[in-house]
């Protein structure tokens, strides 16, 4: 049965690193799924800058370092974020276990208190680090929580995209995610979102996401990351910019990083 084993092994490799299917055959839900997969990295180290800008143009700038790694064959992503500046929050760390189908686990370490606190938050609509990005924006959703529809095709900055609506199946999901409808512009080539428009629970325009400078980080698996994401809140005129300053693909990130013990080692 050696042959069979080899066939299975080959097949599984083939399936994990599945090359693109013919795009014409994908339905809306599959496109969205592929879109979320397209930015998942087996492991990474990253330096980035989050700039939060209020309606009068005043800025709050945070520099952060992030390491991340996929576990459970991609079902769980563990992430450690460490604040580098400003000085008063330097060393503050956030450890997140992002599960596919249950509430995330989060711990925050505050060096001034020498203390780690678990953060309990069930709402994905919560803003991340006080920015306009929500946890829902940062992590893949539960696919079955939404219905999907291809609305058409459109070019965004020279890239041909599908225009796809994503609608929560019920009010509870809508409440949890903080929107009643999201229209995403997903590139036909690399499946990376180029633009997304969010409508609030009352159907009014809420936020607009622009994604720029997409780079292929893991060419083997066709995984990409945008170097710059801008989220503009159209209702309160606040704006947040997440800029990736450095990004290293590294599937072999030390597992020890993703422990509260390491979180407190600062």
């Amino acid at each position, binding site marked *: 049965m050696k042959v069979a084993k080899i066939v299975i092994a080959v097949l599984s490799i083939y399936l994990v690193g599945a090359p693109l299917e013919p795009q014409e055959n994908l339905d809306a839900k599959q496109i969205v799924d592929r879109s979320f997969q397209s930015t998942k990295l087996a492991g990474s180290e990253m330096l980035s800058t989050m700039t939060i800008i209020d309606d009068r143009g005043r800025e*709050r700038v945070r520099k952060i370092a992030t390491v991340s790694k996929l576990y459970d064959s991609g079902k769980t992503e563990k992430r450690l974020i460490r604040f580098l500046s*400003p000085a*008063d*929050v330097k060393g503050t760390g956030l450890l997140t276990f992002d599960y596919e189908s249950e509430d995330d686990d989060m711990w925050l370490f*505050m060096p*001034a208190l020498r203390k780690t*606190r678990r*953060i309990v938050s069930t709402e994905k609509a*919560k803003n991340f680090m006080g920015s306009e990005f929500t946890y829902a924006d940062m992590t893949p959703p539960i696919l079955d929580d939404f219905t999907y529809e291809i609305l058409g095709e459109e070019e965004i900055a020279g890239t041909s995209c599908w225009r796809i609506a994503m609608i929560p199946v019920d009010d509870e999901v809508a409440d949890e995610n903080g929107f009643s409808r999201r229209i995403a512009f997903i590139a036909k080539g690399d499946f990376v979102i180029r633009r997304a428009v969010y409508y609030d629970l009352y159907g009014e325009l809420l936020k607009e996401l622009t994604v720029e400078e997409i780079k292929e980080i893991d060419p083997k698996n066709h995984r990409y990351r945008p170097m710059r994401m801008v989220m503009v809140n159209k209702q309160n005129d606040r704006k947040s910019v997440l800029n990736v300053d450095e990004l290293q693909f590294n599937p072999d990130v030390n597992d020890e990083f993703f422990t509260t013990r390491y979180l407190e080692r600062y």
Partner: protein
Amino acid sequence: MNKAAQKIVRFRWPIIIGFVAAALFFGSRIPRSEIESDMKAMLPSDMESRINTDRIDELFGGTDMLMVILKSGDVLEPETLERTREISRQMKRIKGVDKVLSLFELKNIKAEEGAMIVEPAVRRIPENEEQKELLRKDIAENDIVYGSVISKDFTLTAVIALLKTEVSDIEIVKEVQDLVSKIRGSEEVFVGGLPFTRVQVTKSIQGDFRRLLPLGILIMLVFLFFCFKQLRGVFLPFIVVVMSILFAMGLIPLLGWKIHVITVLVPIMLIAIANDYGIHLIAKYQEYNFEGNLFTKEELAGKIFSSLSKPVILTGLTTTAGMLCLLGHIIIPSRQISILASCGILFALAASLLFIPAVVSMLPKAKPVILARNDKKPFLEKTLVFFGKIVTSRAKAIIVFAVVSSLAVSAGIFFVVVDTDPNHYYPDEHPVAYSGRLVNDNLGGAQNISVVFQGDIKDPRIMTKIDVLEHELQAMPEVGNTTSIARVVRQMSRALNDPAEEWYDKIPDDRNAVAQYFELYSMSGDPDDFEKMVDFPYEHALLTARLNTASTKKMDHVIDRVGQRTDGDPDVALIGGFGSILSELAHKVVDGQLLSLGLAIVVIGILLMILFRSFVAGLISAIPLAISITTLFGLMGIFRIELNVATAMLSSIMIGVGVDYTIHYLWRFREERQNGLNPQDAAKKTLTTTGRGIVFNALSVIVGFIVLFTSSFIPVRFFGFLVVVSISSCLMGALILIPALCLVLKPKFLEPKSL
């Protein structure tokens, strides 16, 4: 008939057309006027508390609260909570709502199994008794909501909309009311808050205009007919009144002003005052047009002008002078009323002297009303004769009685209370007053005093300062609910530290720790949760103390305390808030009152001194005024009538109007003395002739102001009441006290000049 009178007859057409055209022109401007219901607009823009409050609005966004209050036996019942949640949710959708504060929007920061949890104060609607009691316990420990959006006895809960600064009151109140009527339930629901009060005020102003004006006019027509029993006696003074109202009100948009709560007094004052001069002219007309007279209609017109022009001009001037003294008031609408009413009175004065004779000279002669011989003396005349008797026989006793009784009443002055609370514009059972009371007694208070700290807000030194002041204010009985960023930091410190730990329930003494608290919060709370407490760059922090009272004395107590604690502190940038505006307003009302009162007495005294070319004349005529004023304030104290924006204007108006009777009396008395009568006979004669005119004059003022009793505004009703009381007292002063004083003091200026 003098030359001026001849000219009036000759140019009667241009005069009539000119006055009518002017009135029509100004009247046509009236529809363009706007109503101003914002209490802040009453205040001059250089008033400190107003500037500060505007600046606070700029830093932290609008702080105007429009609230929906639900009342039931237990607001934690699922139906009530569901209704509250729905109202809270839909309120967020309304355009112009900046932020909603409710059990479902405000947060609960707590520790649970080593985790800090930030979640809505009510996360899930309880499904059974046990969950309900757990929720009750949770809420009672959450000082962000307990006693502010839910009453401590759990019978009231509020959904509060903080409004954007540019929003229209009328639209937003209507939307909220529609929303409430759409989301039905068994709870009693009330709408409250300053925007609601302002809308009610605007509606009441419009209602008052629609009701008081026609009513005032009707009463005046009846009164005029009762006096003159002749159509021209009714319509000529009436047309003058209407023209002067059109003129004065038309000035409002022309001067770029708006109609305020108390501007409603202008047409009412004009109805009462502007016909006084016309009344005198008609009375004189009827006097000359006796049975069997041979005057032509032109001669009659000329005679009434030439015989009355001088006293009418003088009384018009004193009234105008009294009105103009309201300029001493800081409150903008008082100053505007002063100018509008003065212009209206001057217009009425001119119209009475020119327009009435011009019209009279054209109308066919009227049927004589005053018959040759009186068969039966009317009641009024009998009364005046009686006055003449007691004045001449008991002059000294009258003076003593007047002084003693006014001294007795004056004790009430010590009880006069100043009050500027807009909720008190209305009677207790009115929705504005009722919801205001609910909020003051159970939901943290409706007025607020705000302190802005500046600097590095995360610095424990400043944070502790905010915390200390907040605690001190919180302990004051006048303070209901307080909010500040320091309170949030404390709450976080309780969630993050165990009771045994050093930093439990404290502002940490490490700046980084404060910063990290906020960072932690930003991981689980909303970024705009703090926007009414600290600005984006953490450079300004707002401490808000809501007051459960609008009593000036109590507000002052809090403001004084804040002042003492923050005096000279460079970390404190501003002290403002609607409470501090009301308090400053109250002080300005008193100052304005004293200033305008003082001015009125001095100016009118001087006018009288000039008129009678005597210093003593000014002093003597000031005596009945002084007595009226002491009686007025005494009665205000005794009947607990508050001194407010409306009643504060009373005294100088009263002086301007009330002195007329004294002038008329003294003028005629001197004339009779010069005609050779002895003082006693002169007093009697004056009382029975001019006295009659004085009574009519005063009655017309009283009748005119009586309609104010039906105003929607309590201060305006009291204003009406006080006018009636004080004009009556001026009338009695002129008919009894002045004659008595003249007989006892025998002032030189009234004595016949020896040739």
